[in-house]
């Protein structure tokens, strides 16, 4: 009988130790939230047209609903009675080498966890959450993409995701501090390091001190203009949390705890996050879940802080200092996944003469293609650039000469898209635009 055959097949399936660990992880995560999302897809297909991977490749395996399906079918097979008894009748899938290979290709190689599909989903299935759960299973199997894993390892082992030695970090900040003094012609201007009892502990994306420090100078100039009482820590300053991307909750927790400890050591009141999409999402929203307690301090994005400075007249801007037309790219994790939607527009409109929205925008914006840790995974680079064509087309249509975005990860992807699709634009942080428009107070002497 067919039914008996199915049962025999199910029993004969042998799992490796690593596969068992992954399934155990999945089981441990099966709370009401995950169960609901795993069991709710009605296969309406609306998500397909919302995904930049599917739109760019037309590969049906990249339709977000299919991404949910593969995780759901593994859950069905091993964690439901029906799936255990008669897997084929319930669309349950054996967790074998082939399934693992498919899973890696889909959840690491064809998803930036941007969440646009979830906004368009007819019943609101949280696809990035399911994808991240699958990535967590692959963490258990030690099958995280090597570039992504080494970025997490660098952060855990060295304190920042690029492995910058502390003395080199300090040298760079001192160099930038001298630059600031000259720029604002005030020998009291500085970038304070490890100062205690400050109002603000600021953070950085390590690519800023390492390769792109103009954004640090910009923010330091804004803090100077606002007469802010702030500091940078020379020990814990990394705003990124690549463990959020890899699915490694232990690593994510460790990185969050370090920031909490540093806030407490420096007796700082507010943690201000540099322009970093996933950093905002991970620290502002996911962090308290990882450390299982609320933060005893406030966490905001530097873009929100600049918005406050403008509203309260702590800084003065002259938009005529930025004459070229500017458009804005909304980082998925800050906008769709973080709820920071209008303040960047308010800030840009105060800093430039001509602001043009790209279409679609806000929570409906397309991912640049570089999110979800994609920049760290070289093996999928070709797909990343291909899926970014949608973003390139969006930018071209605006006619803007400058693309501003509050995310260093997006900036790197946009730089590549700029070259690949010959957009001829300049890519800037919001801080850089604001610093260029700053009107400093006349010195009293």
């Amino acid at each position, binding site marked *: 009988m067919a039914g008996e055959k199915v049962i025999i097949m199910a029993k004969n399936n042998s799992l490796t130790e690593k596969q068992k660990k992954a399934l155990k992880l999945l089981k441990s995560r099966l709370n009401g939230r995950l169960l609901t999302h795993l069991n709710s897809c009605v296969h309406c297909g609306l998500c397909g047209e919302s995904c930049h991977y599917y739109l760019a490749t037309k590969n049906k395996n990249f339709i977000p609903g299919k991404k949910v399906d593969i995780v759901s079918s593994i859950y069905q097979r091993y964690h439901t009675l029906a799936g255990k008894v008669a897997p084929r009748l319930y669309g349950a899938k054996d967790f074998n080498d082939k399934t693992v290979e498919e899973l890696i290709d889909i959840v690491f190689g064809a998803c930036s966890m941007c969440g646009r599909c979830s906004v368009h989903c007819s019943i609101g299935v949280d696809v990035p959450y399911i994808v991240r759960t699958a990535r967590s299973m692959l963490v258990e199997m030690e099958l995280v993409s090597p570039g992504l894993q080494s970025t997490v390892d660098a952060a855990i082992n060295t304190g920042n995701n690029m492995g910058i030695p502390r003395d080199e970090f300090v040298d760079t900040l001192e160099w930038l501090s001298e630059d600031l003094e000259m720029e604002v012609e005030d020998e009291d201007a500085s970038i304070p390091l490890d100062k205690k009892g400050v109002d603000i502990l600021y953070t950085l994306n390590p690519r800023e001190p390492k*390769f*792109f420090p103009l954004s640090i100078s910009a923010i330091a100039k804004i803090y100077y203009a606002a007469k802010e009482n702030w500091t940078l820590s020379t020990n814990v300053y990394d705003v990124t949390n690549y463990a959020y991307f890899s699915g490694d909750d232990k690593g994510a927790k460790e990185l969050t705890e370090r920031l909490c400890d540093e806030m407490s050591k420096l007796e700082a009141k507010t943690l201000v996050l540099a322009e970093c999409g996933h950093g905002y999402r991970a620290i502002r929203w996911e962090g308290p879940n990882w450390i299982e307690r609320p933060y005893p301090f406030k966490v905001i994005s530097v873009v929100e802080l600049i918005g406050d400075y403008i509203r309260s007249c702590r800084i003065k801007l002259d938009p005529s200092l930025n004459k070229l037309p500017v458009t804005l790219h909304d980082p998925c994790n800050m906008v769709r996944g973080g709820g920071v939607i209008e303040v960047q527009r308010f800030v840009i409109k105060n800093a430039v003469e001509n602001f043009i929205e790209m279409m679609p925008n806000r929570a409906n914006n397309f991912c640049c293609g570089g999110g979800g840790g994609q920049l760290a995974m070289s093996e999928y680079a070709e797909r990343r650039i291909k899926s970014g064509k949608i973003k390139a087309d969006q930018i071209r249509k605006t006619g803007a000469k400058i693309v501003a975005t509050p995310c260093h990860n997006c900036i790197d992807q946009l730089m590549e898209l700029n070259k690949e699709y010959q957009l001829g634009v300049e890519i800037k942080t919001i801080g850089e635009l604001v610093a260029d428009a700053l009107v400093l107070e006349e010195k009293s002497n």
Partner: protein
Amino acid sequence: MTQLEIEGKVFNVDGDGFLVNPQLWNEEIAALFAKHDGTGQLNEKHWAIINFIRNHWLENDMAPMVRKICQNTGLRLKEIYTLFPMGPAKGACKIAGLPKPDGCV
């Protein structure tokens, strides 16, 4: 790993175009990579940066901070970005034959 062909020469590179085996690098490869990625003909300033990055990597097993590149070549920060439109990492480090640095680059 993918293969990159420039002017009839074939190189093993990662998906981002960084040399898989950085030891195979030489000045001819640098010139070809620069032509391929749009940096163009390499001048004295380019070479000063490339050589500094290369030597720093050979000695320290890591790409130098951009501050060090500026201080050792005497070039201004903004010049580095003009000389290498893809930036210090995906531009200069790639041409200098380094492996891809970790992080958001």
